[in-house]
């Protein structure tokens, strides 16, 4: 058996090429990520350049403009590419913030237990029940709509999920023998959490992070619809969708393309998160 290892004959000849959902998810994310990074080389149009020539306004998708143009004659392909940068940044940054906070709270609550657990989980309960509405309203009245505000808002409403997952997982890990061994050897609680529990949370956190990005990109679309998105003239997929609203009848592609890209990207992150 060992001799066959690594040789071509070890691979079954008729192995069908089956793409797993995770692979497809990775490919989608990679493709959109590369497109976003290379945006300036993939289009010659300026995403914010207004062109009010008659045939440049609300032009349907065609050779010159693959995604068509909007009411200000801006090229939607260019806006979609540059918008990808904004939407994905929002997704990644709010995910980082939510995962960091959620991990700290979940790890502390799950490992330390007792009154700390009770207190932290009540905080999570309240944060879950606390109306998103008020948070939005407060944020809106203190700050001008901006990218950082959007990211903070999304992170502030999504860390609780991570905290709950991490807490449950931490409790399972903490009940295992190697933790008891570390405790017996006199390791401090901080050290155990950092060096023994945290590394074992890696796969859980990977899944949680992937879901958090998906959720954040959807939240960006929803908040943009409610008028709390990235300020104009910069494009994000959410604001593009919002911009297209008034032209749903005469130019449905204005809504179709950004929504499709959001769905595709979120689908990618959801697929990667599926552990099977």
């Amino acid at each position, binding site marked *: 058996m060992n001799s066959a290892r690594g040789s071509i004959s070890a691979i079954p000849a008729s192995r069908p090429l089956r793409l797993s959902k995770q692979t497809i998810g990775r490919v989608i994310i990679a493709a959109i990520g590369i497109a976003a990074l290379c945006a300036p080389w993939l289009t010659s149009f300026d995403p914010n350049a207004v062109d009010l020539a008659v045939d440049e306004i609300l032009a349907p998708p065609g050779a010159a403009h693959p995604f068509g143009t909007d009411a200000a004659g801006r090229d939607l392909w260019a806006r979609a590419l540059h918008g990808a940068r904004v939407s994905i940044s929002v997704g990644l940054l709010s995910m980082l913030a939510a995962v960091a906070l959620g991990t700290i709270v979940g790890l502390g609550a799950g490992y330390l237990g007792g009154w700390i657990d009770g207190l932290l989980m009540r905080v999570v309960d309240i944060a879950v029940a*606390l109306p998103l509405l008020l948070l939005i309203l407060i944020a809106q009245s203190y700050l001008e709509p901006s990218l950082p505000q959007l990211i903070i808002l999304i992170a502030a409403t999504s860390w609780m999920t991570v905290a709950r997952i991490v807490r449950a997982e931490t409790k399972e890990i903490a009940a295992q023998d190697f933790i008891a061994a570390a405790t017996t050897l006199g390791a401090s609680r901080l050290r155990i959490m950092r060096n023994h529990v945290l590394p074992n949370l890696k796969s859980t956190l990977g*899944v949680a992070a992937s879901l958090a990005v998906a959720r954040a990109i959807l939240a960006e679309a929803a908040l943009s619809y409610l008028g709390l998105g990235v300020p104009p003239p910069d494009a994000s997929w959410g604001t593009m969708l919002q911009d297209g609203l008034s032209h749903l009848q005469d130019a449905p592609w204005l809504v179709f393309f950004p929504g499709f890209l959001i769905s595709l990207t979120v689908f990618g992150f959801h697929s990667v998160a599926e552990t099977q």
Partner: protein
Amino acid sequence: MQAIVLRRLAHSLWVVLLVSMGAFLLAHLAPGDPLATAAGDGAAVSTPAHRNRLRAQYGLDKPLWIQYARWASRASRGDLGRSISLRRPVIDLIQERLPASLLLMGSALLFSLMLGISLGVGMALRPGRWIDRIGGWVTTLALSAPSVWVGLMLIHVFAVQLQWLPSGGMSPAHASVLGLASSEAANLWSQSAHFVLPVVTLSLAQLAVWARYQRASLVDALRGQFVRTARAKGLRERTVVLNHGLRNALLPTVTLLGTGIGALVEGSYIVETVFSWPGLGRLSVEAIQSRDYPLVLGLSVTIAVFVVIGNLLADIAYGALDPRLRVFGSRPQAEPGLSETGLNKTGYHGGRAAR
């Protein structure tokens, strides 16, 4: 059982209390002089003496916790203040819009449960086969599409292009059923037609969640020893699946009703706005856009109370359905293979997705 219900009830009251405190505090953090609104629009509060008199009159000179206590005591008697933008008592507005929201969310909950559970069962009966695979893809897709987009595309296709269904609003007949207008007989189709697109849009993501959980829990249940025993006894496959498998596998789904209700409430902000549905979700969005603090505060607390009640009912239903809970008085430590983490790892619990 009774003790559990009481404990859950106490917990719910506690959450409502804390949420109302949090909401009150947040509303007070917001900039803007409450006196300007209290004194009425355009009424200039000029002299310091006049200001102080008004402050005393409205209790604004008292510490925040006294202000909260006063607000809470009024709120518990149904007085949530007056809306600034609509110039009417907040409680009246909520009473007016609540039935429409309950109707929409109730229908969406039923629709998503029925279809989602059926799909989940179908997937679980043939794991790895085509229905399972297609179901897996479809549910992921359903969870990935932003509901604004789904709603708009449905409107474009079914209302604008095909003109099969109205793009939104409530039919007069519905409004009359809810006591919103004078009663008038209308045919059933035009009544339900207004329903279809908003309910489908609101249900879509939740449907996928139910299907996934139902699949996971039924696949798990069917691997159980008791199912092997049932099969060994020679019971019909139908009986094994429905009476032995599904009966056990429905329990975890019931526990998720609470989060499902939360997700539907959040979805309703968008869906009601897209389809001009006269419910609390749209009212909330309007309140935010006009920065109507009393209305936002009242709505937030009302919505939180309903979500908490929904969670409580789901918990009690779970208790009533699970004999272990009735007998031993505590929830089983872990559903086989469906521990909290097991479920969360595969990902989709309602959460507060702002769809």
